[in-house]
């Protein structure tokens, strides 16, 4: 087990290195650099050239990359090319809103998806299963920006029940006005609950038909204990694995949701960074995202192993 974790962490390190090179190369391939983008149409070529030299952008790309990588090894993520703010501060300033969104969404998604999936699986083919399956299918098919705009126009602009955006809100407002969270979390919830509950349903059905369950039933194990002790842990495995994927999926949703609701979070910072060609910020943010994704996946695999200690789960 410990060896497995060490091996995975080693692999993660290699993945991070490859990713950093890729992100740097891709940002370098974008047309223009931070100096070009900063001035729009207002500066003379000399002014842009001066700024480029000031920012060190006139040095070879390889040199700049190794400078950055060297900094990372000592825990220094560098400074923004736009306003000189430390990248760690930018990450810190934007991660809060996104984390609140993600945690709030997961807190709703996980129990509801497990419940819906298990119900649909246990009553496979019944009316309940058919309604759950068809509703989740329909919701999966609606793009989340459409869903968000629909919800805003009905619940905020028509009925006036909920705030339409986060414009002007601060962290403190979030604590005193949790209603700001409702619409964004609802959109993210609807985006992820479908795939997750379908995995739980599939897992439940597979376990219900598995040989050991059939045998246990033959031996007269009561239905309740059969479901709770034998079916659900096995059924949860695809669910937990899917949950790791939901994390990635959530990120895509957060991009859209942050843009629509004007939420000053991670995705907004990333988009701003790319638009401004602010390479250290883009590098820093993607690095944090990648570490988070790798850890979530590792955690999911470890949890699966715990639920069903079979070696193949760890592959």
């Amino acid at each position: 087990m410990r060896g497995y974790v060490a091996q995975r962490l080693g692999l993660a390190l290699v993945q991070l290195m490859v990713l950093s090179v890729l992100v740097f190369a891709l940002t370098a391939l974008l047309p223009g650099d931070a100096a070009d983008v900063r001035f729009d149409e207002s500066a003379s070529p000399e002014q842009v050239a001066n700024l480029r030299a000031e920012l060190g952008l006139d040095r070879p790309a390889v040199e700049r990359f190794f400078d950055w990588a060297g900094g990372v090894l000592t825990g220094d993520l560098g400074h923004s090319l736009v306003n000189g703010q430390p990248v760690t501060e930018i990450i810190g300033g934007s991660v809060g809103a996104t984390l609140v969104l993600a945690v709030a969404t997961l807190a709703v998604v996980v129990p509801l998806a497990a419940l819906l999936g298990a119900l649909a699986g246990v009553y496979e083919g019944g009316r309940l299963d058919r309604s759950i399956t068809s509703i989740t299918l329909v919701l999966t098919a609606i793009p989340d920006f459409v869903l968000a705009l629909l919800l805003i126009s009905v619940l905020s602009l028509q009925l006036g029940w909920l705030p339409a955006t986060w414009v002007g809100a601060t962290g403190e407002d979030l604590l005193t006005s949790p209603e700001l969270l409702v619409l964004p979390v609802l959109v993210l919830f609807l985006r992820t609950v479908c795939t997750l509950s379908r995995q739980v349903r599939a897992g439940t059905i597979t376990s219900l038909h598995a040989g050991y369950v059939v045998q246990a039933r033959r031996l007269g194990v009561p239905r309740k204990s059969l479901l709770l002790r034998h079916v659900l842990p096995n059924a949860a495995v695809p669910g937990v694995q899917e949950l790791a994927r939901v994390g990635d999926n959530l990120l895509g949703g957060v991009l859209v949701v942050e843009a629509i609701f004007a939420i000053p979070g991670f995705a907004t910072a990333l988009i701003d960074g790319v638009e401004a060609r602010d390479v250290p910020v883009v590098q820093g943010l993607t690095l944090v995202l990648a570490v988070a994704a790798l850890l979530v996946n590792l955690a999911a695999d470890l949890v699966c192993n715990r639920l069903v200690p079979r070696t193949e789960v760890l592959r």
Partner: protein
Amino acid sequence: MPIALTRRGFLGFSAGAALVLGGCGGAESPGEAGEPQRGGRLRALFTGGGTRETLDPHAQNLFIDQARHKAIFDKLTELGDDLAPVPRLAERWESTADATVWRFTLRQAIFHDGQPLTGDDVLFSLARILDPAAGDRLARQSLSAIDIGRCRVVDPRTVEIALSTPSAELPALLATTGAAIVRNGYADPANPVGTGPFRFVSFEPGRALVARRFDEHWEGPALLDELHILSADADARANALQGGQAEYAHEMSPTFARTAEAGRTVKIVAAPGCTTQAFVLKTDRPPFDNPDVSLAFKLLADRQRLVDVVLGGRGVPGNDLFGKGYRYYNSTLPQRPRDVAEARSLLTKAGVLNQPVQFFTSTVSAGFVDAATLFAEQAGEAGMRVEVVTGAAETYFKDQLTTGVLGSHRAGAAPIPDYINSRLLSTSPFNATAWKRPEFDAAFATAQSTVDEAERTRLYHALQRDLHDRGGLLAWGHPDWITAVAANVHGVRPVPPNTVDWARFDKVWLG
């Protein structure tokens, strides 16, 4: 001079709205709103610029930054509705007969820290703007004629500004973006001390500025207690305004204006036809090095249709010149009609009728691609093959200088001499029409240094006639500038951006 525009979407209009909507509406008649009332908080939304936003009033030209700077700082002059200079911190001014030395009398004004405004603050501000070591001073180019070493403080309320080349336009140039007057010794942008109507409370780039009324403002205190200037993209602005989370939204689309006008919660304040949408033809390379071809292209454009479709009818057709309605605009020139037959014969004569022409455009500004596509269709009716190519948004205006022969262009509001200076001289950094004529440069220099106003106007008119006849600017439309406010907001005037009453929150009040 930088013509201040936001990078993300100059105008948020969308195509396909072919409705012709006359008039601009929304401007309230005096008396309708009742007596101005004091108090309250106004939340104003502008297109955000993320980490690029700054409080340094000499460093940034996003509209949102300008609005923030305007709340906290003042300039010596500002521009009126017609883009002529009006007095602000400078009460009056006079120049020597050759327009090389100017004397400005300062108003009695005090800074937020209680210190009175003096000539030293003015000279410090100018020196900071002109600092050759700073890479980000916006107004440096426009104010480069100032010879800072020879400027002097005559007495605390009189400053003499000396120029290295004569300019009758100095008062207008001092209204340029990035020319705010800061306190002598100003070095910490995070702690701005100005003479403006609001004093700084807090600022987070990409999110919000909070400011409170400054009771000792020289013009009298503002009516509002508190002002928030917030960053939000077009959809968020529309939703927040309609959802009651804000009272003022800048840069709204014609589509939004149409839906908003149907309801009662939002008022539209539109400044009619005050900015410019154009195509640029590169006059230094084939086929547009032949003035006949340029003229033919100008004759091919169906301007009214472009206005109807691309601007949703919210604008007026252009006459191949920048600055309709501004001081010095040559309105005596006949409106260019659409004449496909004449265009065809000019193109045949030039031998380019069946040659493909590349139209290099980008999504950088809403409507660019739509206008290019529609124009390609219109040119096709005369047998001209125009192929639309889309380039990267972030660097489009730079790429345009080297790429393609035909491109998209838009300009906000700036005095006509500033526009010529930044776009149409051999030395202009963003000369997108590649209009490089030594005789034009010389005639401009003469006009700019002519002190007699009538004579100067005549000279500027002649320059515009030349551009209209032979230049590479196909200005097809002048869009309205659309702001939306909540129904209880009063005192917002329909004016072009960059003018004195634009984003002027000290005159706004809540009903």
